């Protein structure tokens, strides 16, 4: 019953292409603590995947393994055709293709918004400053805060900061975007700002893996919802079915909790 590929038509269309992210029998331990257990997952180009599950179930760890912020100990992770091993060159290559947005934004507080955005393109991609700034301004417009370009992160609200973080990732023109609970540190009004940006991004066809409990978002954009618990993928389905007909008891319990909130 394992690793059945997504079945709904939209996902099928997308998964026709080669897999952008492929995890095969991935295991990970923190010291003696088994945090990821035999994870199998294949994400096609353009697919949008939402990962949910209770706290401590290993969602963040999974996401972070994909751009090797954490090292997995068993199994294979292949991103855009490059396998993640301890080879530094490969890791750098993958990291250039994969953008990640953290819960805590992690903007560089000593640089202005624009500098945050052009840092990596200039140093990693060796883009000329002019071009990098132009591109950055475009992305800032896309996340609707071009007027904040000269400010420092400390001067922005949480929602604005998170949008800068998204723009900063986009500036590297990644093929895949990872989101790790991007809205959970935000006030309710700001959540919407950020979700709007993410929905738009999804519409433009970006491959996305998103850890979130915003079920509205999941329903709107996801091709597939993945439910994790205890380091395992427990259930995997297209959103409609996932929310209306959860199969697994654990899933049901979880959904009943978050939907009642």
């Amino acid at each position, binding site marked *: *019953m*394992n690793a*059945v590929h997504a*079945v709904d038509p939209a996902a099928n269309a997308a998964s026709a292409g080669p897999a952008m992210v492929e995890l095969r029998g991935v*295991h990970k*331990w923190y*010291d*003696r*603590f*088994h945090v990821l*257990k*035999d994870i199998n997952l294949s994400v096609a180009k353009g697919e949008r995947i939402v990962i949910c599950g209770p706290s401590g179930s290993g969602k963040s760890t999974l996401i972070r393994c994909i751009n090797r912020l954490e090292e997995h*100990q*068993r199994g294979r992770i292949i991103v855009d055709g490059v396998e993640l091993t301890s080879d530094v060159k490969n890791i750098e290559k993958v990291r250039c293709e994969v953008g990640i947005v953290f819960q805590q934004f992690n903007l560089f507080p000593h640089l202005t918004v624009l500098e945050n955005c052009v840092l990596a393109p200039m140093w990693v991609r060796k883009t000329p400053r002019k071009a990098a700034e132009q591109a950055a301004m475009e992305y800032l417009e896309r996340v609707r805060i071009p007027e904040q370009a000269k400010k420092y992160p400390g001067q922005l609200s949480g929602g604005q900061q998170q949008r800068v973080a998204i723009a900063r990732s986009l500036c590297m023109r990644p093929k895949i975007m990872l989101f790790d609970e991007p809205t959970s540190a935000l006030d309710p009004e700001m959540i919407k700002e950020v979700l709007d940006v993410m929905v738009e991004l999804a519409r433009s066809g970006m491959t996305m893996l998103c850890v979130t409990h915003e079920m509205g978002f999941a329903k709107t954009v996801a091709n597939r919802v993945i439910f994790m618990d*205890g*380091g*395992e*993928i*427990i*259930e*995997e*389905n*297209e959103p409609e*079915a*996932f929310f209306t*007909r959860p*199969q*697994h008891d654990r*899933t049901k319990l979880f959904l009943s909790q978050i939907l009642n909130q």
Partner: protein
Amino acid sequence: MTTYPQRHADLPPPSARTAGLGWLRKNLFDSPLNCALTLLSLYLLYLVVPPVVEWALIKADWRGASSEACSRVGACWPFIRVHLNQFMYGFYPVAQQWRVNLAIVLLGALIAPLFFRRFALKSWLGAVILLVYPVIAFHLLVGGRFGLSHVETSKWGGLSLTLVIAIVGMVAALPLGIVLALGRRATNMPILKALCVAFIELVRGVPLITVLFMSSVMLPFFLPEGLNFDKLLRALIGVALFASAYMAEVVRGGLQGIPKAQFEAAAALGLGFWKSTALVILPQALRLVIPGIVNTFIGLFKDTSLVLIIGLFDLLGSTQAANADTNWLGFSTEGYVFAGCIYWAFCFSMSRYSQWLEKRLQAGQRH
């Protein structure tokens, strides 16, 4: 739609690569740079360790009662043994040294319960240590009453003098520092604040040895003729004032760490300034900066060595006096090494204690 009914059991992590050779590879040789660093470190160790071990242990002389017993190719430890009494007690009369020992043992016995977490009478004991013990220790050390013979402070010396200066400095610096810190925060009293700031910055801005020089030889200039007091006492005042300026800054940090809301909550209950400070603010602020306080104590303990410069024979002074012993010339290295080890042992244990406290406080545990 997919579900994955079977639950994986937790597996042990894959082959432990973290023992023996694996450990070496991981911690010492995992990149060319690290290899180079490891080799460099090994070379440094090779340069330092064998000669030191050879000097201090292998080629050292341990027995004998005179300098002839020492071959001078290694350390001459009899030098230390012969002068040990001097290092510990200075010129304190041998027959009376039990008094020093008693004072120290008493202090140790009083302090020990403070280290137990679940000791209920901590604050009472603290009060005893701060208020009663000094009186006892004073009479014990100085004598002149209760049938104890009088021992002049000029006879005090060695490690016991070092401890006296350090402990008195610590005990006096804390309340003074608190007063100064409160004064520095009294924004509604600009003159008072300015005085405190001036004092703190002045004292922190000049070297301790000039303060000691002032207190040891210049003080009588400022007093009416004939009025004079003990030299040790003056050194103590100098050290305490100096430490209090540092302490004030530490305490101020703690006060700043207490949210304004705590003041407000106390005020709203009808507690006045002094009551809320004493009952609510200070207990929290001091707890917050215990590591800083201990660090100031460490500094103070080390700084006591400077009283050598004003002619008090503390541990280091006794060492130098012993170095000048005509019968034992040329063993100053042993003397410094020995004194250094003692200072180090005290400071190191205090610094470990402070680190331990820091961890404990960070863990957010209360009591």
